[in-house]
């Protein structure tokens, strides 16, 4: 295979990943590493470097749209980014000490969890949560545009969310993913934020978390320009198109199918690691 064919195939695969990731809300980043390692035989370190870069591109692109709609809670995001960036540095350091097989298995388990988490129902019951001393002191309580005007909400569970965000950061730095699933878990379940606020704030944080990991990967020589180029451009184009289609699309079935694909990839990664 020559360089042009390889680049075109990787770009095409990344485009599909970005498109499906945006349409289903699962993010394209999670399937990039299995795609590159299982299908193209790329070493997992290169794959993680390229995936991390594409995660920054999609999250920054999407965050630009969301932030304007006034959903994301910037104070919650900034405070928790202390935990995710420290976690990302720890995760990027951990890569040096873990064997490829171990990273593969952790990746597979994480994929299974994301597929499972995407099937949850999110009841909108959090608006009436009581104020919490720590969150109030940190000025986190805010409001968001609900169907009938702006609705106020209180934030709680800051320490638990902070701990979960550290884990999300470690996974991001270790696996080259956005860890959106764990971030949403922290804000949705621990802080009881309205679901829309959780997802958009998570998206907003993913770029900063991934940047912390990507800086380490770049200076360590894990980011190969020839590989990262088609991955980043492909995922970005796919996710932009996906976000545009999303407006009027029914995604229930698609999400189910994509969750299935992710589950299969997860099994492959785990099998690959244990073999």
């Amino acid at each position, binding site marked *: 295979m020559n360089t*042009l064919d390889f680049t075109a195939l990787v770009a095409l695969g990344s485009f599909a990943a970005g498109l499906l990731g945006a349409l289903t809300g699962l993010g394209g980043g999670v399937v990039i590493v299995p795609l590159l390692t299982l299908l193209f035989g790329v070493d997992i370190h290169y794959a993680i470097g390229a995936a991390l870069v594409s995660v920054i591109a999609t999250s920054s692109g999407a965050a630009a749209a969301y932030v304007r709609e006034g959903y994301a809670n910037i104070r919650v995001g900034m405070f928790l980014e202390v935990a995710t960036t420290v976690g990302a540095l720890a995760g990027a350091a951990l890569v040096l000490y873990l064997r490829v097989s171990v990273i593969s298995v952790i990746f597979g388990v994480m994929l299974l969890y994301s597929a499972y988490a995407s099937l949850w129902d999110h009841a909108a019951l959090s608006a009436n949560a009581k104020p919490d001393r720590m969150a109030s002191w940190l000025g986190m309580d805010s409001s968001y545009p609900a169907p009938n005007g702006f609705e106020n909400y209180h934030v709680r569970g800051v320490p638990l969310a902070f701990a979960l965000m550290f884990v999300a950061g470690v996974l991001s730095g270790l696996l080259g993913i956005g860890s959106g699933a764990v971030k949403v878990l922290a804000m949705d379940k621990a802080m009881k934020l309205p679901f829309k606020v959780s997802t958009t704030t998570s998206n907003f944080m993913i*770029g900063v978390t991934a940047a912390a990991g990507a800086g380490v990967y770049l200076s360590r020589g894990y980011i190969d320009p020839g590989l990262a180029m088609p991955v980043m451009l492909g995922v970005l184009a796919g996710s932009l198109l996906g976000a545009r289609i999303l407006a009027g699309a029914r995604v229930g079935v698609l999400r189910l199918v994509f969750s299935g694909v992710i589950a299969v990839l997860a099994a492959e990664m785990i099998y690959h690691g244990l073999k």
Partner: protein
Amino acid sequence: MTTQIMEKTDQRMDLIMSRLLRTGVLLSAMFVLAGGALYLLRHPTPVTDYHNFQGQPAEFRTVTGIFHEVLALRGRGLIQFGLLLLIATPIARVVFSVFAFLSQRDWTYVVVTLIVLAILFYSLFGQHP
């Protein structure tokens, strides 16, 4: 009253931030695309071996090394510069947040944001084994 003013400036902050993110991603994609075209035109050879991990040479790993490659108009150097811009985009957002919180005299969050910024700078410019 004060919370209303805070929310107003919050909204303006959001708008500038979203423009900043969009511009950063667009600029980075343009460099990556241009560099990619140059790289593909000059490398019709068999594909690089990605199966065995070797790591990148110094010129693609450090900020100064990447700048040298860009000035030499090398394809891969331009790609790497685009990727550097991409990594810098969320960092620019954090820098902007420092000033936004300063203008609101929200000292707690000025400190929080500076901590995040310090971690990001350490990641990009620090020595990593």
